[in-house]
């Protein structure tokens, strides 16, 4: 039993493949989440300030993306965009690089599109929860709007949003398993291939589960630490 396990994991190289898959999962998840967050922040601010038209568009985007299975978003992005991107890239002579990097690029963008929709809701909720008096104080001191936002509103909202962002991140890291359809060998896909070929589905799915669990556990610790750091000034609640 243990010997079989050794042969599968080490001699046939599945352990390394799974770790490589895990690395792809983390990379795609991290980049996608980051990109999504960077885009979500201004959109959430526009939504928060109820800017006409933009506000409705942001709402529509958020509802559609949150209402449709993630797989579809990935399909549409991947199969809908290949031709266009390819034409553009070919014109500029990047044919090869596109062929090789394309799944990664689309993977990150797809994850970003999904996580962005959820991040918008989280950030907007947090912005709304910042006590208005604190912003009035800034106003009464003539602080420019931009400074008020970057030095007062945003840091305070960030603290309030942290729990929600943690949730989005946990979801995002698991959503990366959908990216396999575009040909990325991330953790879940590697596990599926290994399960199929070695005919040990439970072994490999359980290993995948354990690896996912490890990732979320580590990020949970990091988030708790961040929360403690950001909670300076709040009586450590």
């Amino acid at each position, binding site marked *: 039993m243990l010997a079989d396990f050794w042969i599968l994991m080490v001699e*046939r*190289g*599945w352990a*390394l*493949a799974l770790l490589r898959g895990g690395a792809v999962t983390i990379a795609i998840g991290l980049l996608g989440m980051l990109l999504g967050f960077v885009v979500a922040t201004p959109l959430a601010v526009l939504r928060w300030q109820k800017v006409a038209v933009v506000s409705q568009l942001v709402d529509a985007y958020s509802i559609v993306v949150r209402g449709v299975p993630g797989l579809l978003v990935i*399909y549409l992005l*991947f*199969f809908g965009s*290949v*031709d266009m991107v*390819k*034409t553009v890239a*070919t014109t500029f002579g990047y*044919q090869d690089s596109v062929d090789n990097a394309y799944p990664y690029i689309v993977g990150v963008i797809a994850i970003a599109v999904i996580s962005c929709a959820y991040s918008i809701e989280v950030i907007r909720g947090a912005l709304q929860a910042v006590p208005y008096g604190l912003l009035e104080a800034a106003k009464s001191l003539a602080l420019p709007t931009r400074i008020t936002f970057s030095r007062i509103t945003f840091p305070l909202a960030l603290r309030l949003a942290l729990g929600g962002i943690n949730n989005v991140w946990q979801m995002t890291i698991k959503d990366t398993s959908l990216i*396999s*359809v*575009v*040909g990325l*060998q991330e953790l879940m*896909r590697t596990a*599926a*291939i*290994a*399960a*199929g*070929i070695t*005919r040990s*589905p439970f072994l490999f799915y359980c290993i995948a589960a354990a690896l996912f669990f490890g990732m979320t556990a580590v990020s949970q610790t990091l988030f708790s630490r961040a929360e403690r750091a950001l909670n300076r000034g709040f009586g450590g609640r």
Partner: protein
Amino acid sequence: MIISKIIKSALATSLLVSALATAASAKDGVLRIGTEGDAPKFSMADPSGNVTGFDADIANGICAELKVKCEFVVQTFSSLVPSMDSDRFDVIISGLGITAERQKKIDYSIPYATTPLYFVAAKDSPLAGLKSVDEIEKAIAGKTVGVVTGTTYARFIEKQMKGADLKTYDAVTQLTADLANGRIDAAFEGSPTWVDFLATPDGANFTKIDVKIMAMDAPDVLGHGMGVGMRKGNTELKAKLDAALCKMVDDGKVKEASMQWFQDDYTISCKK
């Protein structure tokens, strides 16, 4: 006059563009092959990404005939067709069954092989000793039968075994697991699956129902055997592939691969 001139030049430009486009996508000397990579014996991607199995042998044979280099792209079965549509690869070699419905979407080469199909049931099941398709059809009414999603077998059960309760699975391993757990009364799959399963401890209580079913027995639902899939309308590529496959069938290369992986000859002879 001017208008016709404009149309002509527009046509010429578009032809030029499309010529450039095809030149750019199909790189010289490389055939890009989409395959699923997690189908035992057919298409197996190892940890470092190399593909082996019957499909891989066929692909390598074709590449040798065409004097090009094979480049494998491993992708889940369900995304193979749209990926080919968006030019991620040129052909699909993944044990793809040829059916009339699918031919509306993609073109196929000539069929080169087909797997014999069998029902498997528990040894103590009343189904175990049946001797003909008709007997199976009668006995299986009201029983649950498992098949793998995406195969033509599902439709065979739906059309030919109307009384049966169909269960579909994403992977062969899941199908055999449920058969072993007793959730389904019988399963319908290709011979290679059963050779493997019946040899495992789980398979010890099960037996093949001794009725060999071939695609040619019911081409309307089971199709015409396995072919290489390609984008619609590429007659030049189809001609090349057909010729290469025909040669491989004739000189025994397909049989050789089939014997190696399945210990049985699945070759379909090449009709000229």
